[in-house]
């Protein structure tokens, strides 16, 4: 018999708010489709499952035997036909059965619950492998919070349904059927009467625990509000003190707190019903047995021993009946979660998936954009319009206002977003005919927001080349003008980054990302405004290094700093998704009013009126 405590729903108050995604559940997939997801695990571990369920069923039967043994004893005692020795034998039998029960319980728990954990792991790894194949549009549609919810709450719900849910279902089924069979064997009418309250119990449990789940979610939301309010208050403490808002905030906190208390009471109303209802149903059954069964004993149609056994059987039925309601909920929740996982695994990347054929990389690759149009989503205004551009060896600068399409070009080159056929060519071939990894392996990329991982600094730099030697890592860091600062850290290159490690400034993070790109030593370097937080002097130092290192290779730098741009071979000025003009610094000063106005704003002392 699974532990009763499990009946308290698996969603404890400490789990993070989860069901934000519950409201936006994707379309329900058919049951066979969902089961297909679980098939591999069920197939692989079928003998483990068979073993577990056999153990479970044996436990159930053994438990039913104990009352029979007791009945023997009581009946024997009632008509004084039993001896001391046979009493001892019966007692020994009970102990032997109890030992077997304990052992077999361990077995089923390990096999079945263990199976649910294996299944969870299998699904988790599948989700992760799937995520690794998804592209940028996918990650825009699915927020990290949503995806995290899939891998924690949804997996937990599936695991619960396939573990304790399955156990409870099998247990309840076997136990109730067997118990009822034993009871029927003793007395048919009495059984039917005693069972009268049980279906109600199952029904109540089901409807109540469904409602309980909803109310738990409300509590979760209230708890999040309370947390967010405390957080925003503590973060803005200066403002609150400056405005003497302490009382004001306390009042608001009080109102939130009261609402939280109320929603908790809402949960208590239901919890206050669930457990007592089970007791009530059991006791009502007992009442019926006492009343009716008692009459039967008086009338002589039921033996005293049967009567006592009947009472024991009834006590055994309370749990399975509660479990049926509980299982229905668990399974329902598991299916909903499984459906979300199914939907997630069904998402396809928009980029063509062509297997890497191991083609050797090009030494001097070039990109050409031919009449390229691009919009982030159908219906959105295009981010790039009619772009004709060749990006070959040399240093190219891209500039333009926010939203002019600078970053979009970088992202398209890196194959993060899909492009139409015949618009983007790599080494003279349409990128849509090339494996993604083939194109990407030519590019070292530095994004706008440096992405660092919770690992050592050395590991972050060596992200693209885990086999790099220490010297190579240091050399890359030196080229990105970050070596000295890394050495000043307490653990140098072994320092950890992130929550528990060192905090780096924006400029340091950007240079670390640059060092990572440099270490890869790929023929194309794309820096998407990746040095914006680095000061001008350092930027120039880094740039001088790049010039040497990338002689004959391709570099693409997005920047708004005119000084920086003036050092490149060619500047591309974008305006609202179109190429406004291209050329060298001097050329553009003469030809482009947009470029000239940027130059003036940055280089000349500002006119008095402009202030």
């Amino acid at each position, binding site marked *: 018999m699974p532990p009763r405590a499990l009946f308290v729903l698996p969603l404890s108050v400490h789990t*993070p708010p989860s069901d934000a995604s519950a409201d936006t559940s994707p379309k329900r997939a058919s049951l066979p489709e969902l089961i297909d997801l679980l098939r591999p695990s069920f197939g692989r571990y079928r003998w483990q499952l068979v073993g577990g369920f056999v153990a479970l069923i044996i436990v159930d039967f053994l438990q039913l035997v104990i009352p029979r043994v007791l009945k023997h004893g009581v009946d024997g005692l009632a008509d004084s036909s039993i001896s001391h020795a046979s009493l001892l034998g019966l007692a020994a039998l009970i102990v032997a059965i109890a030992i077997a029960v304990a052992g077999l319980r361990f077995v089923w728990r390990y096999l079945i619950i*263990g199976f649910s954990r294996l299944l969870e792991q299998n699904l988790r790894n599948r989700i992760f492998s799937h995520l690794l194949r998804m592209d940028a549009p996918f990650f825009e549609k699915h927020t990290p919070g949503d995806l995290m919810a899939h891998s924690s709450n949804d997996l937990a719900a599936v695991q619960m349904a396939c573990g304790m849910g399955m156990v409870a279902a099998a247990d309840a089924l076997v136990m109730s059927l067997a118990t009822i069979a034993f009871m029927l064997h003793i007395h048919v009418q009495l059984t039917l009467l005693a069972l009268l309250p049980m279906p109600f119990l199952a029904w109540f449990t089901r409807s109540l625990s469904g409602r309980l789940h909803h109310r738990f979610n409300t509590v979760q939301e209230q708890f999040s509000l309370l947390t967010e309010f405390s957080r925003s208050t503590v973060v803005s403490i200066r403002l*609150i003190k400056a405005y003497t808002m302490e009382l004001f905030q306390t009042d608001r906190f009080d109102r939130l707190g009261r609402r939280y208390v109320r929603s908790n009471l809402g949960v208590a109303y239901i919890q206050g019903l669930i457990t007592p209802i089970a007791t009530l149903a059991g006791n009502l059954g007992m009442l019926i047995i006492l009343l009716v069964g008692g009459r039967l004993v008086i009338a002589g149609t039921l033996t005293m021993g049967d009567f006592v056994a009947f009472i024991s059987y009834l006590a055994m039925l309370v749990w399975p009946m509660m479990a049926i309601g509980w299982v229905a909920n668990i399974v329902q929740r598991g299916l909903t979660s499984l459906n979300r996982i199914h939907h997630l695994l069904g998402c396809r990347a928009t980029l063509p998936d062509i297997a890497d054929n191991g083609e050797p990389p090009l030494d001097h690759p070039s990109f050409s954009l031919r009449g390229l149009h691009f919009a982030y989503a159908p219906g959105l205004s295009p981010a790039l319009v009619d772009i004709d551009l060749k990006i070959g060896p040399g240093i190219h600068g891209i500039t333009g206002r926010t939203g002019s399409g600078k970053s979009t070009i970088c992202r398209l080159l890196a194959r993060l977003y899909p492009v139409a056929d015949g618009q983007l060519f790599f080494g003279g071939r349409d990128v849509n005919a090339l494996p*993604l990894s083939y194109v990407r392996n030519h590019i070292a990329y530095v994004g706008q927001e440096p992405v660092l991982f919770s690992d050592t600094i050395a590991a972050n730099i060596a992200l693209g080349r885990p086999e790099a030697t220490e010297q190579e890592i240091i050399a890359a860091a030196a080229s990105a003008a970050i070596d000295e600062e890394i050495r000043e850290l307490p653990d140098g290159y072994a320092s950890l980054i992130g929550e528990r490690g060192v905090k780096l400034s924006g400029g340091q993070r950007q240079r670390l990302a640059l060092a990572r790109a440099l270490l890869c030593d790929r023929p194309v370097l794309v820096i998407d405004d990746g040095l914006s937080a680095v000061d001008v002097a350092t930027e120039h130092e880094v740039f001088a290094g790049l010039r040497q290192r990338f002689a004959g290779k391709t570099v693409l730098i997005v920047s708004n700093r005119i000084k920086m741009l003036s050092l490149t071979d060619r500047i591309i000025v974008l305006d609202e998704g179109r190429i406004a003009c291209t050329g060298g610094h001097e050329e553009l000063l003469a030809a482009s009013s947009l470029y000239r106005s940027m130059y003036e704003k940055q280089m000349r002392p500002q006119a008095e009126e402009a202030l």
Partner: protein
Amino acid sequence: MRNFGYDEDKRGGSLSDFRIWGRILRYSIHHWLALAGAVTLSLFITGGTLTLPTLLQQGIDGFITAGNLEDTARLAGLTRTSLWYGLLVLLVFATTFVQTVLLEWIGQSIMHRIRQDLFTHILRLDLQFFSTHPTGRLVTRLTNDIQNMHEMFTSVMVTLFNELVRMLGILILLYLMNVKLALLLTIFVPISALVTTLFARLARACFRAIRSQLVLLNNFLQEAITGMAILQLFSREEKSRREFEDLSRGYLERTLSQIRLFGTFMPITEFMSSLATAMILWYGGGEILQSRLSLGELVAFISYMRLFFQPLRELSQKYSIVQSAMASAERIFQLLDTASRIADPARPLAKPATVRGELHFDRIRFGYNPQTPVIHDLSLTLRPGQAVALVGTTGSGKTTLVNLLLRFYEAQSGTITIDGLDISHLALADLRSMVGVVLQDVLILQDSLLANIVMNSGRSRKDVESILSRTGMNRFVRRLPHGLDTMIGEGGHELSSGEKQLLAFARVLCRDPAVLVLDEATAAIDTESENILEEALDDSFRGRTSLVIAHRLSTIRRADHIIAMQHGRIVQQGSHDELMATGGYYADLVAMDRSNGNGEDTASSRLFGP
């Protein structure tokens, strides 16, 4: 995972710390009546539950097996007993429900009170406290720690109390029924206590191991999801997959060891129950054979014994909750005992009826750490109505001056006066009502824009409308979907950073302070907001003493006087034109700012930095 990356060592609190129990008790006293009610109900429930088997026994012994009575009398007696039984069943059901809700209410009310006390207390603490305590930790105290305590409250009160009372009740009953049988059963008490504590300890270690692995797994996943483009661009897919599977396997192994642990311990109570049944059948049966015990008594004894083993299991499950709750309580009370370093003076000066707004900093010396001063003997006077701009690089001490003026911190030496009154002699609320501030961070309440502007200033909607139209800020309000009634904050309309700045301005104008302190935002804002902001700035400077930590050249030029600071000292002062003509530090700052690629979409200025 709303713990802000902050993970507390979940050490257990000492259960024997009577001071903590004492304080919890003091909070409970407010609800003594309800508590007394709950205890009474608990006794009633226990009594009721224990009477049920007795009734059953009476039914069996008194009527069913009472062969000496007339059949009709037996039947009537049986009906009567059944009626009582049914009545009692319903009563127990109703009281259990009432008690559960009542206890939840008491627990939640007490936790609400503690939470309010703690919140009020935290808001009273000084800024230095906040700079040394991470936000996540304080939020955890206010939310999760209190929740932990509450869990104990309900668990301890419901389980410990109900179950202990029931166990004791059963034991007493069993002793009354048959001393020898009861003695036999008592053997199981110490054994199960031992098993319980051992299990609780092992389970806690097990859960901790699972949790820490889950944190690793989730962090890895979170980072991989947010950095997926980089992982793909640097061809890390295969390696990341392997790393993830390793973490995943680690998690699996830990959950499996938990299953083994539970598999071993969970059946033990049940086993003991069967063992006890066997012993009682053997021993009790022997007693019946020697006619020292009735059959009804034996049956009743066996049913009571079942009840006896239930609480044992419950208790073992609640043990660890109590432990972690005590740790939480200890942390909460510790925080409540932390005193603020800055408080109202014992006998504050009266707030002047009208404030002219003359500010005087006199030989101020201050360091966040007294050994390393960041302000060195600084003196500064602002005449009423004067607008002064503070400029300087990061760490020059501009923000520190504002912190001292608002008494967020106390200067180590020197005094600050407003209209000749030493600010440390004023009540904090009075001081802060004289000085209005616009800070870089803008607190957004989840409420309407109007409520966000008014906050606690007591202004009416009309006042707000007239202030907004006077300063031209109604243009910003008109842009919003529902004007002043637009809901903002989480789940509402998202304000741009420019609009947030405007909101901050509207707030301070509502309060109409004599002295305005403005910490200008460094973040870039859209042109239209900037235009509105500059107009509002003009209006707010009018008739007020203003101290501006300026980042925009346009703001600096609006000031009457510029103070250039470096390393906690004033190095230059004068008007923009004077300082540009003289050359030196200020002129360098301006030059650097311009050369720093002040393009259209980069932050306004970095070198005048935050």
